[in-house]
């Protein structure tokens, strides 16, 4: 069984994405990057990101990640803030620690692309 299936697949992501997006929108360290006149589109992007983080069927490639973030001047602090918000979301949903660890491993793997290093 894949991590994505263990976490509950698409239904789990739908439950998690509202919580996660609320957290980043109210996180002063990163909220400016998530403010948008088109919140539905932002919400859809967060869903794509979480699908990737959950090891699910995602269209997100490293190149997309790099392209999407390259003009944002992001730092380690920004990256860590989003990762923390993601972990807090999973804790809130009472996801087992070992699965959270697997998610963190996947997300950490994207760090170079996001920070354009």
């Amino acid at each position, binding site marked *: 069984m894949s991590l994505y299936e263990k976490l509950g697949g698409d239904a789990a992501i*739908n439950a998690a*994405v*509202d919580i996660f*997006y*609320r957290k980043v*929108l*109210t996180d002063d360290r990163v909220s400016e990057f998530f403010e948008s*006149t088109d*919140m*539905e589109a932002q*919400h859809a992007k967060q869903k794509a990101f979480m699908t990737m983080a959950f090891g699910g069927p995602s269209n997100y490639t490293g190149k997309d990640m790099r392209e999407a973030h390259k003009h944002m001047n992001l730092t380690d602090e920004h990256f860590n803030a989003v990762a923390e918000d993601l972990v807090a979301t999973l804790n809130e949903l009472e996801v087992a620690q070992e699965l959270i660890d697997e998610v963190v491993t996947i997300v950490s793997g994207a760090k170079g692309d996001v920070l354009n290093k």
Partner: protein
Amino acid sequence: MTSIVFENRNITLKENESVLDGLLRAGHDIPNGCRAGVCQSCIMKSDSAEEITHAQIGLTEAQKTLKHFLSCQCHPKSPIGVQSTSLSSQQTEGVVIDKTLLSSNVTRLRLTADIDYRPGQYLTLWKDKNIARCYSLASHPNKQNYLELHIKHLTDGAFSSWVKSGLNIGDKIKIQGPLGKCFYTAGKAQPLLLSAIGTGLAPILGILQDALEKGHHGAIHLLLGARSPDNFYLVDALKNLAAQNRQISLTFVYQNIPAQNNTNSEADFSFAVQGDIYQYCKKTYPDMKGYRVFLCGAESFTTKMRKQCFLAGASMGDISADAFIPFHTSTLPPSP
């Protein structure tokens, strides 16, 4: 850089230029309105299916099958040929049966036309072959045998000025649509928040009528905003509706007290409260988990209110909005 072929002529598109803007720059007379993918007045067709997919959002399956696309939204990656469509095939003719001032700057227009719609959807109305505007439907097909639209009069509004002084009862008008996805869908017991500013009241009235017609029995919170209390309209009709339906709670929130010399000193604004509608919403609805939300009016309003409702716990999928966007006044592309 890519190009398009139209009427056997090749037009090179500039960086980030849409098909519509390229054609207008080259001097072609292409009907257009909002240039934001909303009004569908700039529909064209092309055989290059792959290059137009991204410009087909909001089109019906039938339109997609005909290879129609929105030229204002189309940025092809490789050269494509484009053709005009027969706009008349997408239009219906309506007849004006009533024109009434609802307030100093809102006109209620009632039309008869053969259109199958959901209350809260919008129509594109055509003044002539170049000027099109979108208006949302306040009427309900099962309750009223006419289409009702609320037209806000703008000082330099090419369309709204015409409605105010050039359009008469009995006149015919070209209509396109219906369009849009902001209509009543909800669990019947779900609490509803219906919120509007300005003529956002029109689609909210449509949605409200539909909720009642479909037997919605959860609470219905109607929250209406305006800059000044004399901007509210249909106040008595709304109060009567709320008095007849105990599930409806009705609140009017206005931003500024009107200047004394501008208003009738006899006017009684006690039906409304003064304040910031976003703060009012935050304070009155601190926990919106499980709410179904409909937001209609200026885009700045629907954006801010959507955020407020979402942060208060409403699920993003349960928030629908009909955002009114400004139309370009000129038929020439905006200068770079």
